[in-house]
């Protein structure tokens, strides 16, 4: 996979993950072009399209579009399920995830994605294992809060 974009129906970019080196200018151009292309498509249309020399796989969940760019020999259907699995992971973590969760906790959305996909390839498909990794981190964090709520931590 070359990149993944999450954007809203209004075309606001909510998450961007690039697995190939591109300049910021190029990234912005691609984003603008793709958001426009995907939003212009009608609901019943197919989830795949050719774009430049890449294949775009996208799916809409409520108000959010998830959009992945894959290479010619990559599998479209499994990419569609990568998107779905990611949504499930977000859902499980946030508990009925909505767009606002991703806006306010964008860093978490990135962390979950990194556990699931790395370098554009699927790293771990087990929901349990991905969430275990994330929750371990949260646990570490809460311990810290315990101390910080007492003022300056004795450990820091």
């Amino acid at each position, binding site marked *: 996979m070359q990149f993944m974009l999450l954007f809203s129906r209004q075309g606001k*970019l909510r998450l*961007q993950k690039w697995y190939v*080196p591109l300049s910021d200018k190029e990234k*912005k151009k691609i984003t603008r072009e793709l958001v426009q292309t995907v939003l212009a498509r*009608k609901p*019943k*249309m*197919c989830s*795949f*399209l*050719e774009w430049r*020399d890449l294949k775009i796989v996208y799916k809409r969940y409520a108000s959010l579009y998830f959009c992945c760019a894959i290479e*010619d*020999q990559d*599998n*479209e*259907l*499994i990419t*569609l*399920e*990568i998107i*779905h*699995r990611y949504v499930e992971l977000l859902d499980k*973590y*946030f*508990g009925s995830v*909505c767009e*606002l*969760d991703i*806006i*306010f*906790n*964008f*860093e*978490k959305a*990135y*962390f979950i994605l*990194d556990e699931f996909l*790395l*370098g*554009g*390839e*699927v*790293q*771990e*498909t*087990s*929901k349990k*294992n991905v969430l275990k*990794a994330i929750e*371990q*981190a*949260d646990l*570490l*964090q*809460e311990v810290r*809060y315990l101390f*910080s709520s007492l003022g*300056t931590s004795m450990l*820091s």
Partner: protein
Amino acid sequence: MPAVSKGDGMRGLAVFISDIRNCKSKEAEIKRINKELANIRSKFKGDKALDGYSKKKYVCKLLFIFLLGHDIDFGHMEAVNLLSSNKYTEKQIGYLFISVLVNSNSELIRLINNAIKNDLASRNPTFMCLALHCIANVGSREMGEAFAADIPRILVAGDSMDSVKQSAALCLLRLYKASPDLVPMGEWTARVVHLLNDQHMGVVTAAVSLITCLCKKNPDDFKTCISLAVSRLSRIVSSASTDLQDYTYYFVPAPWLSVKLLRLLQCYPPPEDAAVKGRLVECLETVLNKAQEPPKSKKVQHSNAKNAILFETISLIIHYDSEPNLLVRACNQLGQFLQHRETNLRYLALESMCTLASSEFSHEAVKTHIETVINALKTERDVSVRQRAVDLLYAMCDRSNAPQIVAEMLSYLETADYSIREEIVLKVAILAEKYAVDYTWYVDTILNLIRIAGDYVSEEVWYRVIQIVINRDDVQGYAAKTVFEALQAPACHENLVKVGGYILGEFGNLIAGDPRSSPLIQFNLLHSKFHLCSVPTRALLLSTYIKFVNLFPEVKPTIQDVLRSDSQLRNADVELQQRAVEYLRLSTVASTDILATVLEEMPPFPERESSILAKLKKKKGPSTVTDLEDTKRERSVDVNGGPEPAPASTSAVSTPSPSADLLGLGAAPPAPAGPPPSSGSGGLLVDVFSDSASAVAPLAPGSEDNFARFVCKNNGVLFENQLLQIGLKSEFRQNLGRMFIFYGNKTSTQFLNFTPTLICSDDLQPHLNLQTKPVDPTVEGGAQVQQVVNIECVSDFTEAPVLSIQFRYGGTFQNVSVQLPITLNKFFQPTEMASQDFFQRWKQLSNPQQEVQNIFKAKHPMDTEVTKAKIIGFGSALLEEVDPNPANFVGAGIIHTKTTQIGCLLRLEPNLQAQMYRLTLRTSKEAVSQRLCELLSAQF
């Protein structure tokens, strides 16, 4: 603000995000952001040391601002500080910032790398993973230089945690993709392959991606992965839907891993080991079988995951292109999907069938779906699906269905989306040309194209129709008549005026006898369009007028009047003015003879690759179309360039003069730096002199087998060693053929003095004409060069030509020879006939010299479908319901040679119990019967 804000409560961040969301305008947002940036700057610069939490919060805010699309030019140092925090979430935010906002500031890179180094050495798996994620996300060369050597060690270390191994594998993959030179191969590579056996499915899932990438670059070093991948795949495919617990996805066991394993196997040819191959074929069959089972869930996720594996399986089957049985099954499966209610599946089925259409084994099976595909073109509501349907029609097109497909494409063009019109125009033009038996049909088709979609007809297309008309005398009169009629339309496209102008200028005389299209009428018709046209078209028409002066002396005064008018002689456009002045002068001073010479009919254009095809390839990008195009390209009048005549010297390769013979003698040791030996005979590569064969290497081992594989098919890899791969694509029509030879340099070093030579022995030479041009003597590392051989079968032949290749690779001289699979059966044209006719002809050929029979043991499994495919691939028609015994196969066809045509009948009788075949051939010529029998017997 959302009700749930899990774990962390960076309140300041949440407030800031809320504020931004509440901004009513872009200006307000920018104002709020600037305020925040100023605040953060002052905090970072302030005297009071910030605690980790605040630092994290501010860095996170900066990140948020950056992701909104604003530039961030500070905060990097604070982020780097977070990296060395021993608090997980601070470290995590630091890494996230670095991953998103890498800065090539060298001082910073050193600090970042230091922090990563510490985390990698920390033996704390969560910290190690964070560091690995960061390297993978950044993937820069600097990171590669710093860590490429360490990561393999972490990956294969016995004590690494599973999650660390997973991240290490994909991290290494990213670095390897970015800078392969930095990743040292070594002892670890063997151990990486064994990760395919790892107990942890997640580790396998990550490792397969890495291995696949490594295999592509070093196939030989990783060969052992084939059997491991097959056994892993087999275990998954045969497991029950719940066996793999959390790795089962909507009742589908490990879909991601399965797809990746199937992908990995596509890096290699079919497994050589029979047991492994058997196991793999079993897997592929199981997947195909499962597709027929009722779904275990109604959820789309279930069917998507299941079909993802199915499509990847089909890709592998197509990649192998050696199991006719599986190919036909794959095609049937895709056929079902063509009518599926899921748009996605219809799209993918159309796409996947395109590649199946280019396999000789499944081309016919694909063709049976033509009506469904045409229907898709008419009824699909999504343009991207219609586009796939166009592609598939193009791919499945051959001589038998070309008129239908071209007609459908033309009618679709009337309503097609603007975005794909130009491509359809190109495709129609190519198909019409490629499959034109009757060139009047071709001319009609192109004129229709111009009528329906004139704006989308590029120059290449209308140049082409002119080139073809000029090269074929049989269609010139028709073309003149047709353009004349088309020009009668009150509003016709400018492209039609161009074609019309050019063709009437050359061949208007052919219809001038008819009083309805007398010279003056032709001229007036063209001139009535003149003022509506652009400058280039007017320039072309002026040339037509001067040609008329030569063709029709009676209209000379009229034309001179036109040329003399102010609007021509004083035209503001310098080209038009010049033409008018010069043509007027020419028509006045030149004698009839001189006029006739200067304005003579255009000579035929030289044959080269179709410029339209080149354009289509360019449009679609080289990766997608090339293969299909090349595979399906047929011999046709391929000329190139604009309608300017080419110098005669390039038009044909002439026969060598007797003096060339001397140069061929004793040319055995090719001079290291001198010109390639063949250049001595005027660029002629068809080396007909047996003396020079002394420089030819003995035939490469295995070349016999490869040769036999090409008897029933036209495309594939002919030869491959460590350095060089030779691929073939060829097509034949009647007694003519064309072969594209692709030489691939598999190394990263140049080949120098690269000289392929075609050698026909003395016995073969009178029967087979081969023509080709030299290739560039330098083949860059990793590059592929193409050579086209035009083939003419003069009379029947037995031997095959030899392709001898010489080149220098890194100081050593390389010499490779292989037999070129040009066999007599390639000039077969299938003939359909009824049972009665068959037996009548069979009886007519009852002379003992005409029949050759061979009884032989089956070397391959005796499969009816495979046999049928082979007989069709051999080139004869497969006649159904002719032989009273349905188990037998009967075929008929005609061998076309330049001198004669030879009718051939064949009958193949399998005996399953004995595992034997009896093959009988009857033709009017003993040698032909003999050779065909030999060739075909070796196929079963």
